[in-house]
């Protein structure tokens, strides 16, 4: 029988919220830059770009090998003065699950990528 220590949950929680979160933020920025870094908003390519961003992000997240289910959401919007609001709300176990949002912009577009990680 395995020994269970409640201290383990606290350490895992701390680990998730600090170490993993910062590595996920860098991972997402890397994926975004890799796909749309240096490009201008292009209606013909935008579909392909958003699909690439979510696929690459998800692949890298799964490679981390953590026992989590992931949802990756990416929104790209052309800069034209329109107002944009996004809100997220989650009903989960706050000790084990978490989320992370990265905002990126260049001269012609905004990109918002959110990752939700739910423990299995």
């Amino acid at each position, binding site marked *: 029988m395995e020994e269970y220590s409640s201290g383990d949950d606290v350490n895992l929680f701390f680990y998730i919220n600090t170490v993993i979160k910062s590595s996920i933020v860098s991972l997402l920025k890397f994926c975004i830059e890799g796909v749309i870094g240096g490009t201008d*908003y292009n*209606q013909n390519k*935008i*579909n392909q*770009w*958003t*699909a690439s*961003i*979510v*696929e690459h*992000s*998800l692949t890298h*997240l*799964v490679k981390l090998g953590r026992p989590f*289910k*992931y*949802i*990756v*959401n*990416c*929104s*790209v*919007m*052309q*800069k*034209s*003065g*329109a*107002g*944009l*609001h*996004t*809100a*997220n*709300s*989650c*009903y*989960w*176990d706050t000790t084990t*699950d978490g*989320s992370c949002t990265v905002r990126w912009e260049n001269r012609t577009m905004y990109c918002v990528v*959110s990752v*939700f990680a*739910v423990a299995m």
Partner: protein
Amino acid sequence: MDDYLTDEQTVFDVEDVNKIIKDTLETVIGENSYKHSRVNQWSTNVVEQCLLRLSKLGKPYKYIVNCFIMQKNGAGQQTATSCFWDNSSDGSCMVKWEKDSMYVQVSVFGLAI
């Protein structure tokens, strides 16, 4: 003895969730036009009320609700989502709502516990 869960409880019911989202949007935003000063409150209310009604369904699910409101200005916008989960029990529901002055999109993701 393990608890017995019926198939009904472990399947994400898209129709129920669809109805909840539409009702919430009608209640919170209704016929209003896009107003910068109120959008923040609308998006917060939409996600909170959706989540409240989803949790009242009493199913063994964790939920993530995402609400996106954009002013109609001719700007282009694209959203993509990718999920790594259990296809047999987890699911999502997306509702797109278009008004004269704005686009609203609500996504609900349900993950079985």
